[in-house]
């Protein structure tokens, strides 16, 4: 087995969703997605359009590597062919929805693909008031292909029913026949579409058992008879990620929580502020 970490495997899975000439939109604080988008552009999707930072900045090429945590705005601008307002980003969303790639990270997701980034608990008296879903509720209604990533596949994320529907997943079976949700987690890849309306396991990551995935999912997953292993990263991909795209390891920030994340973050920005 090749030498790779789970964040690198997730990155390569996510990169595969980017096609050449895809229009890639990047939300807030999604370094794992950023690395995936750049990896795609550096390999099989050189003509992908990457709009960074809530969709405002179009990155033309990969001159501006490695990805940065502290100076990401500066980096994006230095490789930019077009600066857009958020209004223009939405104009693209509505007119080119089938070309758009945008990965969302929900706090909760249920078996219908509904996502919640609003509250844990009761809406009016929440246990946790989350920062908010920003554009996810809008985008879910528009995109035919909803892309979700979950760096921590746990029962409290994969819930039977979200506490609050920030954004609606699969609905209106008749009208949205081809609508689907694809999920890439740290355990495997999943899929839900309007035809079956069942959340299905597609692949499991190497070393992960089906049991482990079931145990970390609150709702019943449809498990096909034969489950393949997730395609592994190539050596070229891993080398690109580690040496060119993300040598500082920003992608690992999303795999961590609390003090570990903060400590890694401070390490990264300390480094970036010095080597500039």
């Amino acid at each position, binding site marked *: 087995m090749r030498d790779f970490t789970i964040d690198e495997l997730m990155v390569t899975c996510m990169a595969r969703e980017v096609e050449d000439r895809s229009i890639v939109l990047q939300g807030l604080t999604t370094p794992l997605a950023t690395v995936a988008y750049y990896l795609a552009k550096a390999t099989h999707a050189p003509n992908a359009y990457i709009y960074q930072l809530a969709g405002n900045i179009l990155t033309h090429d990969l001159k501006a590597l490695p990805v940065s945590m502290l100076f990401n705005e500066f980096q994006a601008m230095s490789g930019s062919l077009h600066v857009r307002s958020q209004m223009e980003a939405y104009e693209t969303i509505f007119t080119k929805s089938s070309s758009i790639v945008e990965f969302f990270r929900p706090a909760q997701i249920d078996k219908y693909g509904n996502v919640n980034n609003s509250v844990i608990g009761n809406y009016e008296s929440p246990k946790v008031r989350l920062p908010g879903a920003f554009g996810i509720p*809008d985008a879910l209604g528009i995109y035919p292909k909803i892309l979700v990533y979950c760096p921590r596949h746990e029962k409290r994320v994969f819930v039977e029913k979200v506490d609050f529907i920030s954004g609606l997943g699969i609905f209106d079976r008749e009208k949205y026949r081809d609508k689907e949700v694809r999920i890439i987690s740290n355990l495997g890849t999943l899929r839900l579409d309007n035809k079956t309306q069942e959340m299905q396991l597609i692949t499991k990551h190497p070393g992960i058992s089906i049991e482990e995935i079931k145990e970390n999912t609150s709702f019943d997953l449809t498990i096909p008879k034969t489950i393949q292993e997730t395609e592994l990263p190539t050596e070229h991909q891993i080398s690109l990620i580690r040496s060119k795209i993300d040598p500082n390891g920003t992608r690992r920030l999303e795999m961590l929580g609390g003090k570990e994340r903060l400590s890694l973050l401070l390490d990264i920005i300390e480094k970036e502020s010095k080597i500039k």
Partner: protein
Amino acid sequence: MPLKEGVNLIEGNLIAIGGLTIHRKPIAFIHEIIRSKIKGLNVLTFGGGPEIDLLVAADCINRVEAAYVGFEILGFAPNFRKAVENKKIEFKECTEYSIMAGLLATTFGASFIPSKTLMGSDIKGKLGLRTIRSPFKDEELIAYPPIEPDVAIIHIQRSDMYGNAHLEGVTAIDDQLIKASKKVILTVEEIILPEKIMENPSKTRISSSLVDAVIKVPYGAHPTSCFPYYAYDLWHINEIIEYSRSGKIEEYLKKYVSSLDSFQDYLDKIGKNSLTRVKPKQ
């Protein structure tokens, strides 16, 4: 115009704040609001960050309208989160589209914007959005009503003395906020000559015909970013989090805001090293 005078322009039911999360927030202006002990504000912002958290901590806020309030990679805005959980402030949870559609309705003379966009989301109900029947198809549509802020406060890179301004990097919806608001206050890193603006008029994103006040405040967005002058100061934003977690946000406010006379005093207190480490390479 000094910041103190700028704060006197704050009036009305809805105050819009520009920027996005930890980008280009008018922090110097926010400090002055806190020093002026203004209370009961209703604030609209696209994505809120430290500016909302500090206003909430200083008890200046009645209601926040936003699609997001947080510190991005640093997570929760601690004082905002606590205040909503404890019902000390009202939070009107919006989405990107609900805010953009509302501003667009105002600027484009539409009575509302009818769209299917949020159909099925629980946010629709919380926002009290009405539905109508389409006159063209057999379908239900959400009617997004106009949003017209009374004042917009925006920190931007540079403008001339009249307010003809550039807007760079993460622009969010600041151009729309400016067009839809009755009054506009700009705080700017630099004031440049109109002749400089004329050299590249296609770069002008804000027309002086929409601007009521221009206030020069270098580093006026710190600890949020102002491309290309400086990045966000994640160290300092983390300091806000740490003060808050240990129940000492009032100490923070005293040390960095209320005991000081001006934003320059704050910058002096922050220290040169802090300002240097967020400077990009040349």
